[in-house]
């Protein structure tokens, strides 16, 4: 049986990695991720966790080393934030293209310049097109659980997974977390299946140059070209939506907790209006929804847990019949709108009916967001305001 402990999301992430019996950890310190790396280092040094811990000299090397370790057959873990994640950018593509089942904790932080160490989600959102799965957590329990789910998922589909959670808001806030026993985790997550093919030194060339068109192999079998491999990555990421749901269900069978798969709903049964958001901000949106319900407005919340793959048809199903939808997100695709709003609107394009939509960029660089503000903006949307806005910008 598990045990409830009062811990931060960073500690929850470190505990999860340990419970998943990771074999190689490589990480470079960056605020607010640092406690994850420190706690794992201590576990390895004390012998509590049997793993190789690589103290790399950069985030690029952190990801490069875990990719390589995974390629020779190890279960691997790393963690980063903000500029560190951006420094990994090349390796993010490389990891996904290599089809290695890495799980990485991404502690969301605003991106410099200018420097901020505080939270928004610009860092991970800007890495959405790298071929990784992105899951956004709303509390520390979900962080712990999602890392465990993440390994199951990554190893099943051979695609790396980012487990994203808000810096400081979650990473440094202590809350009660049910830490499962090793036995429970072992029942859910089997020992790492070594698919490296590295045995006895059988020659191979991993990730070589490839042509645009298929080419005959040594055994005269036509092998895929670059585009086929890219297609397979896209196919498997899209198909993972169903696997995410089934992994979450199986998780629930073992641990008694479910996180809603790709999307979660709050008071949506009778709602006329929805608020859509991600991460801890989405939790805050439930408070705003309650405030509005107290005023007699039927508002619910749809939390986007999985951003990549984007649960487009589910989004459409949840939102298309509503009167209005208000998006709040801590990111922006400069020159257009917030990323979640953009994607959700694209998903709604196919629907026969569509809600009126407004989208808000909020809370960048740790700017405080109060439920009253969210409620007010939602009321504006319900009152007919549409388009793209920035909340609480004084100019």
């Amino acid at each position, binding site marked *: 049986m598990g045990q409830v402990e009062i811990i931060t999301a960073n500690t929850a992430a470190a505990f999860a990695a340990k419970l998943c019996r990771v074999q190689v950890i490589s990480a470079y310190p960056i605020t607010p991720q640092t406690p994850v790396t420190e706690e794992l280092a201590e576990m390895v040094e004390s012998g509590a966790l049997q793993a190789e811990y690589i103290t790399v000299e950069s985030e690029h090397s952190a990801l490069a080393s875990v990719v390589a370790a995974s390629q020779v057959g190890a279960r691997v873990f790393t963690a980063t934030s903000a500029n560190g994640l951006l420094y990994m950018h090349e390796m993010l593509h490389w990891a996904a*293209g*290599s*089809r290695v089942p890495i799980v990485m904790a991404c502690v969301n932080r605003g991106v410099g310049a200018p420097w901020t160490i505080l939270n928004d989600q610009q860092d991970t959102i800007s890495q959405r097109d790298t071929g990784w799965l992105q899951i956004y957590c709303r509390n520390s329990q979900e962080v712990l659980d999602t890392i465990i789910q993440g390994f199951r998922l990554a190893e*099943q*589909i*051979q695609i790396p997974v980012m487990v994203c959670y808000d810096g400081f808001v979650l990473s440094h806030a202590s809350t009660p977390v049910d830490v499962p026993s090793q036995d429970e985790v072992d029942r859910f997550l089997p020992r790492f299946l070594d698919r490296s*093919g590295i045995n006895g030194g059988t*020659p*191979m*060339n*991993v*990730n*070589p140059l*490839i042509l645009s068109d298929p080419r005959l*192999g*040594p*055994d005269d079998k036509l*092998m*895929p070209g670059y585009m*086929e*491999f890219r297609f*397979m*990555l896209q196919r*498997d990421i899209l198909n993972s939506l169903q696997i995410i749901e089934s992994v979450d269900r199986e998780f629930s069978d073992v641990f008694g907790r479910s996180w809603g798969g790709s999307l979660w709903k709050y008071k949506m049964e009778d709602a006329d209006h929805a608020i859509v958001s991600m991460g801890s901000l989405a939790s805050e949106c439930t408070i705003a929804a309650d405030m509005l319900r107290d005023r007699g407005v039927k508002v619910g919340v749809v939390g986007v847990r999985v951003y990549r793959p984007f649960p487009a048809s589910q989004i459409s199903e949840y939102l298309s019949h509503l009167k209005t939808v208000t998006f709040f997100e801590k990111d922006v695709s400069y020159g257009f709108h917030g990323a979640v709003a953009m994607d959700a609107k694209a998903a709604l394009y196919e629907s026969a009916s569509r809600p009126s939509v407004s989208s808000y960029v909020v809370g960048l660089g740790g700017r405080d967001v109060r439920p009253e503000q969210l409620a007010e903006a939602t009321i504006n949307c319900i009152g007919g305001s549409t388009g793209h806005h920035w909340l609480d910008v004084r100019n």
Partner: protein
Amino acid sequence: MSENSAPIKTISKPAKGEAGKTGDWRSQTPRIDHQKCSQKDSCLLCWLYCPDGVISSNFPLQIDLTYCKGCGICAEECPRKAIEMIDGR
């Protein structure tokens, strides 16, 4: 992922002639004068210095012309001038 379906990882297997018959690259072809290449005091320098490893180490020496790129190092380095580069393939 089924192990039988198309591979999802790009992993090459070893085989000869990856770049095709690279002998087609040649503009000059080495020819060994086996009279000059004495087996008794043979040096094997051509075998040693051939970047592509297409010269045999057994006597009489043979060059795999299917793959020899015609760089001419063997002819240049042969201390007995037993290898000559002839124009053409």
